[in-house]
């Protein structure tokens, strides 16, 4: 399909008018959003609000991947789901809500877990990926795949009363491209010990905490897309903003704190000049993410 030559339809001017009239978006930005496709990995506490605002904003294609079904204990924070849809896959449940919010968005269902075998083929069709998952093995897998495919990654996490947000691999230069944005492995070269990883099920989670992080993921995604992610990757310019980690603490004072992060790590196994994370290694299963992260239940954790 060739890119659209004409601006938006009348109903689109009406629906998106409030964001169109801002210089930060404009008609050009809105067209970029419409032509863009993003993949949301995990349709839980982060993925629900992120999806709602991206679909609301008129991102052309939104893919959703998750292998779980809706449970009652999800509903205090996973606001796209509903009591009547307990037991439905999270992907299908989210699509009910999202298509009723904005029927103009192309929603793509991937009701399955992301695995090292499937990640390259699933993620290659998207322009940008949101990491809305809940475990370290998935986080390394998604970051590695984003680096291999040259996609920016908007990553967030939350636990109890705290949250963290980073835009990674932005600009998404190939491995060895020193001016590319750092990847997840640049920031965390070694995974945490398995026994120190606390899930939301064990540790608890306050709904608006993970909700805030998910909405901020949608915001960062809109910022990257409306500036033109493809142009950024192609002309190799550096990101307009140096990499940061936004830390949120609901009971902290102040609640938000911004940390300057390092750039790419030359020795990074994923994005460094001598990267060992290759498409072949990924697909062959020789990179055992679960083992790397010290888990005993390999792909189940993803």
């Amino acid at each position: 399909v060739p890119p659209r030559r004409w601006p938006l339809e009348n109903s689109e001017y009406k629906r998106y008018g409030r964001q169109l009239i801002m210089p930060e978006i404009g008609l050009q930005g809105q067209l970029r959003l419409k032509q863009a496709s993003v993949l949301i990995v995990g349709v839980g506490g982060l993925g629900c609000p992120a999806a709602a605002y991206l679909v609301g904003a008129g991102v052309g294609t939104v893919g959703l991947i998750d292998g779980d079904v809706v449970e009652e204990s999800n509903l205090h924070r996973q606001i796209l789901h509903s009591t009547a849809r307990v037991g439905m896959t999270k992907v299908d449940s989210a699509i009910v809500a999202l298509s009723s919010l904005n029927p103009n968005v192309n929603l793509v269902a991937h009701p399955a877990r992301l695995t090292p075998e499937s990640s390259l083929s699933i993620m290659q069709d998207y322009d940008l990926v949101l990491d809305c998952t809940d475990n370290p093995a998935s986080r390394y897998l998604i970051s590695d795949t984003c680096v291999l495919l040259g996609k920016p990654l908007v990553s967030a996490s939350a636990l109890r009363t705290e949250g963290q947000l980073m835009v990674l691999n932005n600009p998404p230069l190939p491995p060895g491209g020193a001016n590319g944005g750092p990847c997840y492995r640049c920031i965390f070269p070694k995974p945490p010990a398995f026994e120190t990883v606390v899930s939301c099920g064990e540790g608890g989670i306050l709904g608006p905490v993970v909700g805030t992080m998910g909405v901020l993921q949608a915001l960062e995604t809109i910022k990257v897309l409306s500036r033109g992610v493809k142009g950024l990757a192609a002309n190799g310019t550096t990101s307009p903003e140096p990499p940061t980690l936004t830390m949120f603490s609901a009971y902290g004072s102040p609640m938000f704190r911004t940390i300057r992060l390092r750039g790419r790590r030359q020795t990074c196994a994923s994005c460094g000049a001598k990267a060992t994370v290759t498409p072949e290694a990924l697909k062959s299963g020789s990179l055992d993410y679960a083992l790397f992260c010290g888990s005993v239940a390999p792909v189940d954790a993803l």
Partner: protein
Amino acid sequence: MSAEVEEASPEYVPITVEFSGGLEMLFSNERKLSLSIPRRDKDGQKANVAFLIDYLCQDCLKDPRKDLFVLDGSVRPGILVLINDADWELEGEEKYELQDNDNILFVSTLHGG
């Protein structure tokens, strides 16, 4: 416990140490400590972040699970160390020499969603 001197002194560096992401649980649920660290270690070297980490383990970390904070003499994987709101890798990591009123933040990575 360390003395909580605020003003500059010839013998101690006044600094703030913070914990976040769950690490505060190892430090009696204190999120913020105002500390005065000796300016020199026992060999006369200027106090750096490595020295601070030792100091924290000995003087502040009452929890028996010290290995959730340090492992093999270094901060455990999954913990970010931030010097004045910047990744310590931008500042020289463990060799960074403490300055008056520095803020050192230890953050455990979160994985939930």
